[in-house]
């Protein structure tokens, strides 16, 4: 076979493989960015959410700490004074 034909075949094969790998990288990146999901037949683009601040990040910023809602648990007085209505009569 003509050497030029061999070279041409080699070139197109190599280019195709490079194109395939390039497409693979591009698709992987594009998918990560666009984050498209499907609900039945309909494509839904998921909204980008803001990153959740870390606890350490909040602790380092006094302003942020003031905004943090504190969770307190207080037992209600009704629960403290709760007495079961059923009593046994005893023997």
């Amino acid at each position: 076979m003509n050497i030029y034909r061999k070279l041409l075949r080699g070139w197109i094969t190599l280019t195709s493989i490079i194109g395939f790998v390039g497409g693979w990288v591009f698709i992987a990146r594009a998918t990560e960015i666009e984050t498209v999901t499907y609900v039945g037949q309909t494509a839904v683009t998921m909204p980008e959410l803001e990153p959740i601040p870390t606890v350490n990040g909040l602790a380092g910023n006094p302003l942020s700490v003031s905004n943090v809602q504190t969770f307190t648990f207080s037992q209600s007085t009704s629960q403290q004074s709760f007495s079961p209505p059923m009593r046994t009569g005893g023997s």
Partner: protein
Amino acid sequence: MQNEKIINALTLTAVLVVGVTAMAIGLLAVQAGFATSPLRLASDSLSLDSVHLWWYVTRAAGLMGYLLFWLSTLWGFAVSSKIFDSFLERMFTYDFHEHLSLLSLGFIVLHALVLLVEKVEPLSVMEILVPFVSAYRPFWTGIGIIAFYLTVLVTVTFYIRSWISMKTFRVIHYLSVVAYFGSLFHSLYAGSDSLLSWVQWMYGGTTLVTVFFMMYWVFLLWQRRSEKAIA
């Protein structure tokens, strides 16, 4: 000539097998923790750690298969219209056309085989081989399967050309146009990448170029027939 073609086909298969084996060894090396910096970079770029790895591979193979098939179809129109005859040897352009078809088939086969193992939209052997039975978009998947069979049929005629008449060869080759549009609609309506803007531009551009070459080819065909009728 026939033996040479068979040897070429076997060489191409061997190159693909060696390439895939090398890729598999590379993947194993990365996963086994032998990753050096360039390997790590390659691993990150190709998302080798991703659970969707095979999903990316099948999509890339499908897109590459479509592009090569488009190029082969376009080249076929150009060869038939004798566009390259003034500056390229006909045997050379014909050989290139045949090689593009083979490569295209290779990537389409890879696209189908990976769909068997990936987890996002897994398909069974039956769903891949039999048109319109797939759970995922059955109509457009079926169109893609038919387009693949037509492409195989057209490619096979390269190897049995000496055994069939030129008229049969041409009639079967006309089916490649149907196969091209089948693959286009399959890619558009069954491909998950159709939502990406650059993919839409790619499909739009390739279709426009194909339609242009096809119109030119039809015009030349009509002109030749008219000249024959007058003579």
